């Protein structure tokens, strides 16, 4: 897709043309405007960061992208298909997967089951075979188990495979959540503050995983992050939101130098 626009990065990754274009999105709750007229794009294969102060509308933006909120205006073009409103499971079936700001794991299930849950859309065997469990359904289950085990190895969480996720420490829960999102083999991965509440060591691990995912699987990633250091290190391009509006968009270095961004972060009165 749009491979004519592809470029090579310094570290040898291929970045393609826009996989997603967000066009003039506005979102209101009752009388409150959460997002006003925002447009940006995400290129295939890149790591795109969305930053901004609290209440800037970052999470709302992700919610719009994967269909949980329906914007009043604007449209989203994903892989050349334009749409205004759709159900989250449709987004999922098109290859958009995500993690959440406050971990949203399935607490009653084990790590293994949580990551298997990410494979839901890949499993096709019908109710009848599921009921009997031997034969095709079992074969299918094992195939997916294999993929899931690879993800478990990749994320280095072998030891907690059978532990109910409710009992895991926060850092590990975040990692499991990433695993669950990866299991869907997404073409666009949305990460909502993947490093919130982590210590430096955990942040380093997580950054490494994100870069590896992008590098090894070529997954396009859009992430929200507060830690500017991390963003500057791993993002290819950054979009900055403030009070529901876009105030800057560009390479990390450019954004960092932008006066509006500095004002927004330092809290200059508007």
């Amino acid at each position: 897709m749009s491979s004519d626009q592809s470029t090579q990065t310094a570290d040898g990754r291929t970045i393609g043309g826009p996989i997603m274009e967000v066009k003039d999105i506005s979102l209101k709750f009752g009388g409150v405007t959460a997002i006003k007229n925002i447009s940006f794009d995400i290129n295939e294969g890149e790591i795109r960061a969305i930053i901004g102060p609290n209440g800037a509308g970052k999470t709302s933006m992700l919610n719009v992208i994967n269909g949980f909120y329906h914007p009043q205006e604007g449209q989203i073009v994903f892989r050349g298909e334009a749409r205004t409103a759709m159900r989250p499971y449709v987004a999922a079936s098109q290859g958009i997967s995500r993690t959440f700001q406050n971990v949203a794991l399935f607490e009653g299930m084990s790590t293994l089951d949580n990551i298997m849950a990410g494979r839901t859309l890949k499993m096709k065997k019908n109710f009848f075979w599921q009921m009997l469990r031997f034969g095709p359904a079992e074969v299918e289950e094992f195939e997916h188990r294999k993929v899931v085990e690879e993800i478990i190895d990749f994320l280095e969480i072998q030891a907690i495979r059978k532990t109910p996720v409710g009992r895991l420490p926060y850092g590990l829960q975040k990692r499991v959540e990433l695993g669950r999102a990866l299991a869907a083999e997404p073409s666009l991965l949305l990460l909502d503050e993947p490093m919130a509440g982590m210590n430096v060591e955990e942040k380093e691990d997580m950054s490494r995983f994100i870069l590896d995912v992008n590098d090894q699987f070529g997954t396009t990633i859009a992430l929200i992050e507060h830690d500017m250091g991390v963003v500057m290190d791993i993002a290819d391009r950054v979009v900055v939101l403030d009070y529901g509006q876009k105030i800057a968009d560009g390479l990390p270095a450019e954004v960092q130098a932008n006066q509006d961004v500095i004002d927004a972060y330092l809290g200059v009165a508007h």
Partner: protein
Amino acid sequence: MIYRETGQFKTNYKADNSIFPILQDRIAIIFYLFVAFIVIPAFGSDFFINSMMIPFLIFALAAIGLNILTGFTGQISLGTGAFMGVGAYSCYKLVTIFPDTNVIFLIVISGFFSAAIGMVFGLPSLRIKGFYLVVTTLAAQFFLEWCFIRIEWLYNYNTSGAIEVPRREVFNVIVTGPEAAAVTQYLVVLSIVVAMTWIASNLIHGRIGRSWMMIRDMDIAAELMGVRPLYAKLSAFAVSSFYAGVAGAMMVFMWLGAAEVESFDVNHSFLILFMVIIGGLGSIKGSFLGAAFIWMLPVVLRAFPKALGLDVPVATVEHVNFMIIGGLIIFFLIIEPNGLARIWALLKQKLRVWPFPY
């Protein structure tokens, strides 16, 4: 030292994915099945089989059904009694319309009717949750109860308004009706319950069960993982009501022999819910433990004063029975919200390290 998993390594996914990965558990299951299929029919008295085992199994099946909906999918229902009724009345109609068809087959088929009705009343669950859903299931309960009285066609215009089980034979063995031997009925019930438990367990350990639990634990995330709430919730309602329906059909055909609408009233919905809570939400084993507990408790309580030589009026026993069940529900919710199934698991945990304290 007896109950150990050490040294039992799984070398392939098949073994690791099996429902009872530990050898001792597999032995235990075989033992239970042996007792259920061989020992009880051989040595159990008619009363024990008829009034303890058969209802226990039937209620356990209904509890599995409700557990699929409430424990695994997180949708509370107070309509189980009515869904059991749908199964029973459909079975009665089927048996009278097709007198020559295998009655066991018809019992299973009647589950589909109840599944269909269950899906209809499950539709509101797509928009509403929690307590609100309780009210819609109560609507199902009371509306269906009314149908069982008012639609006379359902009970073949019988003046008494009751459905009476006719005598039916399968391979020349009397299976239903008053002449049927308790042991025969017990074996039929047991086989159906074992088969359906196995199926429930398969569903729960596969993709469909996972999608139910995803909806239960975090419905928004589930939807973002590609679970369609419509399919997941309605399939849970359908499967749950199917189980309730088969349980209801068996209740009338294999146990009571005749039934009026009161056999499917809201108190039965409560009874099954209690079994699920006390047994453990989200546990198939718990459904059996809960059914056994709730069904046997009154029997024990009734025998208790007599065993002590006290002359306590039956009414008092009945009142105390209510108090104890109510108290136990609160007790379990406080001490161990995961019910008997969790206590069972803790006992096993203890057994694992036995004889050492840790």
